[in-house]
């Protein structure tokens, strides 16, 4: 795909994270802290995002191809299995520990925020270790 599309999407996504406050772990944790002084902002961020993206996905569904005529890569996985749930639990715990997930972590890296690189490196290590295990398993 044209690199400018990927770059532009990442840029706009990152701007959205910054404007909505989702690049600030404290604000994310404020949403996850339901027993404390509660900040519902994340719910509205999700709502705003889904509201807009929903239109795009419906349009894509009707068109059958991208606006450029190239194939749409709809996810094919179906069903709720142990991997999905287990992975979700682990991700959720990690998210709750520091209020960071992949997108905001990259934005923070771009900001030169101290310690953002520590999280990002650990995240890549976590991805890489399990990717390695999977590939090793599949080699037979």
């Amino acid at each position, binding site marked *: *795909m044209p690199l400018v*599309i*990927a770059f532009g*999407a*990442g840029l*706009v*996504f*990152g*701007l*959205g994270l*910054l*404007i*909505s406050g989702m*690049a*600030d*772990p*404290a604000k994310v944790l404020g949403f*996850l*802290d339901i*027993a*404390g002084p*509660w*900040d519902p*902002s994340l719910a509205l*961020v999700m709502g*705003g*995002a*889904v509201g*807009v*993206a*929903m239109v*795009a996905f419906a349009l894509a569904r009707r068109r059958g191809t991208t606006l450029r005529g190239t194939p*749409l890569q709809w*996810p094919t*996985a179906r069903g709720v299995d142990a991997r*999905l*749930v287990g*992975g*979700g*639990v*682990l*991700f959720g715990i*990690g*998210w*709750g*520990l*520091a209020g*960071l*997930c*992949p*997108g905001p972590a990259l934005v*923070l890296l*771009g900001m030169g925020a101290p310690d953002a690189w*520590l*999280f990002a490196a*650990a995240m*890549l290590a*976590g*991805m*890489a270790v399990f990717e390695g295990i999977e590939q090793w398993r599949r080699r037979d």
Partner: protein
Amino acid sequence: MAIDWNVFTPGTALAGGALIGLAAGGFFLLAGRIAGISGVMGGLLRPRRGDTAWRLAFVAGLMAAPLAYALAAPLPAVHIDASAGLLIAAGLLVGVGTHYGAGCTSGHGVCGLSRFSGRSLAATVVFMAAGMATVFVLRHLG
């Protein structure tokens, strides 16, 4: 759940959310791919010809966002309070969890919910609950 009106920012939350939706929706309409950031990054670990450059460009865009933002306004304050050990543990769990769970807040939460995926709804409920439980334990127990 007692709303803290001092920190709740409904306007910018909706506006920023709409931009996120624009990015994710636009990316699918233009490039035909899901803007799931854990997946975009994970694919860099399984390099395939013709599949790497766009991922790097997407990541570069995310990292460039603060630079673009700063052209118009001072960057918002950011507070990373977790200790180094906690950050490492959190990173490892996020890395492992998004790999097994096949997605994160952008992939499942934004893209998945927007296309009415039951699988993504389940995933989102699970990681939200896990996140809330974790914060509860860290902040309100012991």
